[in-house]
């Protein structure tokens, strides 16, 4: 985990940060570290406090409690214009009255860099972001992707210890966003600058980051690699927010060392594995999450193999989307709709509405979290 | 951005100019004017507080006749401006499209950019005894000799309406422009005739524009000085002229201040009533 990294490799450290607006804590006791040269994302729904957190690091908000250290030095009392962090704003905030080169030179001029050094530096960074000829262009003549790169170049030219990115892809259309995700990741590994990226889009966070912090209601719910978050969520919130899942609520009927038996609200009996902190006992209310791709689909029950949970249902809908195709299956007994990834093997090419299918998944793939986990914690805070 | 102690200093620096401006050039002068209107000179450099100036206003028929005449003429001018401007605004907003529309609209704004003095001068050339209109009438054989068309109420009215048109046309075109054509079509479709559609759909929709146009025009007309004096001549009997006379000619500042204050009160009351009736705010109307 990140927090285990040695101190001299840490670019940013936040210690027990708190920011309140009115009585409400927008950022509530958040501590984390970002290792040098890594791509760190903060992922959370809108209003979770991630923008406030970023603005405190940039210096536009003053924390009520806690400390922010860059390279081991506290910067809480340093004004925003003297901090060694630069920020790519949500709408990029390129200066419309200046051309591309003037935009990039802006920070150098403020530092008093000699004129003769500015032009080569600007040119070098323009080449680094792949737009060597755009210097004299007007900002409003650039495409969305080019603007994006210029906004990053404007920060990189200052060689910051940390680059903050405030949902810079949010305003772009889907196709461009997909492409820029890849570009941004490649750019980061090329330049080696530490990136702190905030987003509400889980796909952006998973694709680009070395580490992701999932944030909800002012707190970090879980910090880990994208794989850890996806395969080993620690709370119901993370399980529900990162990736797609089928979700049931129910009550624990029986619990032993191998797993728990749960009866759902619509009377389905399921076997699952307790997940997150703390065990489960008989009578606990739980939420169960099962990923669509961990459900095995078969034309008859024998094809499922050794699975702990079996369901028989009818195909309700086929959502064809190439490699991401899904089948919606209505469970015959409980009436619950279950989302299943459609294997691209051709075996199910002829699948049609109304057809009877069998579903199965193992105990380990049904993760059971105590219900109301996050709500209870937020209430106690 | 907003928090932090250093920016309170910024607030004070930003407050200083506006406070100086409003207090020294607007608020204190008006308070001083009110105080001076409430005193009379009993001996050289000796004053007493009294309502005598206001009493004089109400007991001297010339004064309050002029006052009432100014108010009535202003109301008339406002109504005439509305009547003349409405069909034109409607034509620009609803009958025209594209470039012609923009061009004609801009043309309506031209007089605003030209000094009121020049505009009034133009009217004097048109209306005087040796002027264009008089010559045209003679040429057409409608009159035997030259006609003096200046120095009467009609001339004042022509000039006042002319000066006010812009302030009526702009709000009217803006509100009429926002009326969806399909509403008018629906009105006809449901069996209304032209008059009924106008009365039940167009005018109610344009009401905010009508109200703010009328308020601004009335205010400007009431406080106008140049047009009534130049086009109406010595007997124009306009209230601002009375104020000028008291101040500059008779050097009776006490009475002049009282007149000024009365005009201000009249203007404010009418504007306030207008805003109340139309449910608008001052900041919307002056835009």
């Amino acid at each position, binding site marked *: 985990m990140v927090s285990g990294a040695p101190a001299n490799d840490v670019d940013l450290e936040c210690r027990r940060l708190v920011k309140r607006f009115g009585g409400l804590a927008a950022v509530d006791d958040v501590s984390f570290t970002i290792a040098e040269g890594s791509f760190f994302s903060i992922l959370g729904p809108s209003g979770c406090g991630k923008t406030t957190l970023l603005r405190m690091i940039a210096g536009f908000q003053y924390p009520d409690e806690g400390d922010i250290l860059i390279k081991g030095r506290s910067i809480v009392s340093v004004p925003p214009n003297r901090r060694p962090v630069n*920020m790519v704003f949500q709408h990029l905030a390129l200066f419309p009255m200046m051309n591309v080169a003037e935009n990039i030179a802006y920070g150098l001029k*403020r530092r008093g860099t000699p004129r003769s050094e500015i032009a080569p530096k600007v040119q070098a960074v323009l080449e680094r972001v792949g737009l060597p000829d755009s210097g004299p262009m007007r900002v409003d003549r650039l495409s969305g992707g080019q603007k994006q790169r210029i906004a990053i170049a404007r920060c990189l030219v200052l060689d910051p210890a940390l680059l903050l990115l405030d949902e810079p892809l949010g305003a772009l259309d889907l196709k461009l966003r997909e492409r820029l995700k890849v570009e941004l990741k490649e750019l980061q590994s090329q330049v080696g600058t530490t990136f702190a990226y905030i987003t509400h889009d889980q796909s952006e966070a998973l694709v680009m980051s070395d580490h992701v912090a999932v944030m909800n209601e002012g707190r970090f719910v879980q910090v880990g690699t994208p794989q850890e978050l996806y395969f080993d969520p620690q709370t119901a919130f993370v399980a529900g927010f990162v990736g797609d899942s089928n979700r049931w609520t129910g009550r624990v009927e029986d619990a032993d060392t191998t797993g728990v038996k749960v009866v759902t609200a619509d009377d389905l009996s399921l076997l699952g594995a307790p997940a997150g902190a703390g065990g489960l006992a008989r009578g606990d209310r739980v939420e169960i999450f099962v990923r669509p791709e961990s459900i095995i689909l078969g034309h008859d029950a024998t094809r499922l193999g050794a699975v702990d949970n079996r369901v028989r249902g009818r195909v309700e809908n086929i959502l064809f989307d190439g490699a991401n195709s899904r089948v919606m299956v209505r469970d015959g007994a409980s009436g619950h709709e279950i989302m299943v990834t459609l294997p691209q093997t051709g075996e199910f090419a002829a699948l049609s509405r109304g057809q009877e299918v069998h579903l199965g998944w193992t105990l380990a793939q049904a993760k059971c979290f105590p219900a109301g986990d996050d709500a209870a914690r937020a209430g106690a805070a | 951005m907003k928090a932090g102690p250093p920016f309170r200093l910024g607030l004070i620096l930003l407050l200083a100019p*506006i406070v100086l401006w409003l207090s020294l050039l607007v608020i204190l002068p008006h308070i001083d004017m009110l105080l001076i209107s409430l005193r009379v000179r009993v001996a050289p450099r000796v004053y007493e507080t009294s309502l005598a100036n206001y009493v004089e206003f109400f007991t001297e028929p010339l004064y309050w006749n002029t006052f009432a005449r100014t108010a009535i003429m202003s109301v008339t001018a406002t109504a005439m401006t509305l009547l003349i401007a409405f069909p034109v605004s409607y*034509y620009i907003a609803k009958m025209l499209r594209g470039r012609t529309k923009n061009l004609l609209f801009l043309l309506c704004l031209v007089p605003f950019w030209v000094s*009121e003095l020049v505009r009034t001068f133009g009217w004097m050339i048109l209306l005087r005894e040796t002027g264009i209109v008089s010559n045209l009438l003679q040429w057409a054989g409608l009159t035997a000799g030259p006609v003096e068309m200046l120095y009467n109420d009609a001339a004042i009215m022509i000039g006042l309406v002319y000066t006010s048109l812009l302030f009526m046309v702009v709000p009217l075109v803006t509100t009429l422009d926002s009326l969806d054509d399909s509403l008018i079509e629906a009105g006809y479709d449901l069996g209304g005739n032209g008059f009924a559609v*106008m009365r039940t759909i167009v005018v109610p929709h344009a009401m905010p524009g009508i109200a703010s146009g009328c308020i601004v025009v009335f205010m400007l007309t009431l*406080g106008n000085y140049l047009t009534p004096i130049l086009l109406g001549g010595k007997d124009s009997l306009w209230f601002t002229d009375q104020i000028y006379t008291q101040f500059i000619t008779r050097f009776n500042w006490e009475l002049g201040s009282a007149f000024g204050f009365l005009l201000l009160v009249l203007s404010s009351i009418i504007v306030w009533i207008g805003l109340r009736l139309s449910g608008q705010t001052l900041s919307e109307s002056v835009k």
Partner: protein
Amino acid sequence: MIPSIPQPRAFRVTYAAYVALFFVYLMAPLAVAAAFAFNDSMFPSLPWNGFTLDWFVGDAEPRLGVFHDGALTESIGISAFVAFWVTVLAVGVGLSNAFLFERQTFPFRNLLYMLMLAPLVVPGVILGISILVFSNSIINGIDNAVGVEIDALRPGLALVVLGQFAFITTITTLVISARLRKFDLSLEEAALNLGATRMVAVWTVTIPYLKPALIGAGIVAFLMSFENFNTTLMLVGSDAPLTITMYDRLREGSTPALNAVSLMLMVVSGALALLSVFVQRNRGGR
């Protein structure tokens, strides 16, 4: 009564004729005021005696043209002087007010905003006399207290500048505020983030952004000052700005030199008006 609804031909023709007549009414006084600048006659009236430029360039009485009419050229200079100072003051204070109302929160903000609008509602003549009365009170007060007479506050150009500034500032404030309201605050934050101090951020980012509005407000302020009559009339001393000089000549009856001045005024204001439209249209650009 829209193009999609058929109307009798007679109605359409009448309506169009009315609108045409309206524009004749609108343009007639301007047209004649301009045309008679070129009439070869001693008076700005018919008959038309042929074309002349005497009223611009004539250099001797009785045909003294504008360019050689000392009183007129001097008053143009005075008007320009007054307008310059009014513009500088009104745009400066307007800019400060825009930042105050758009960026700051403070008690009685709405009350102050209403007061800021008040000068538009007060008739110009009354604004003039109130300032006249108040400046006189100040002179007397200081005279009584310390025995010094401050002549700068007697009717004269200083008072004229202050009087015009008093209501023109409201207009510049509204124009500049409207533009500042559209400013994206993150641009200023970006400047801070790139190492600018607050003052430098405002100077290098916000002010350039406001430039079209500042120029537009400046043009409007200059024209309104140049053409103001009502407030000026009450505060003027021995140095008469152009409008006052023209007014005096109008009452006496004047030569077409006055038309020549009028035409020049129209041309200059027309050019400035076009310039301001152009500047506003190109806003956001470089």
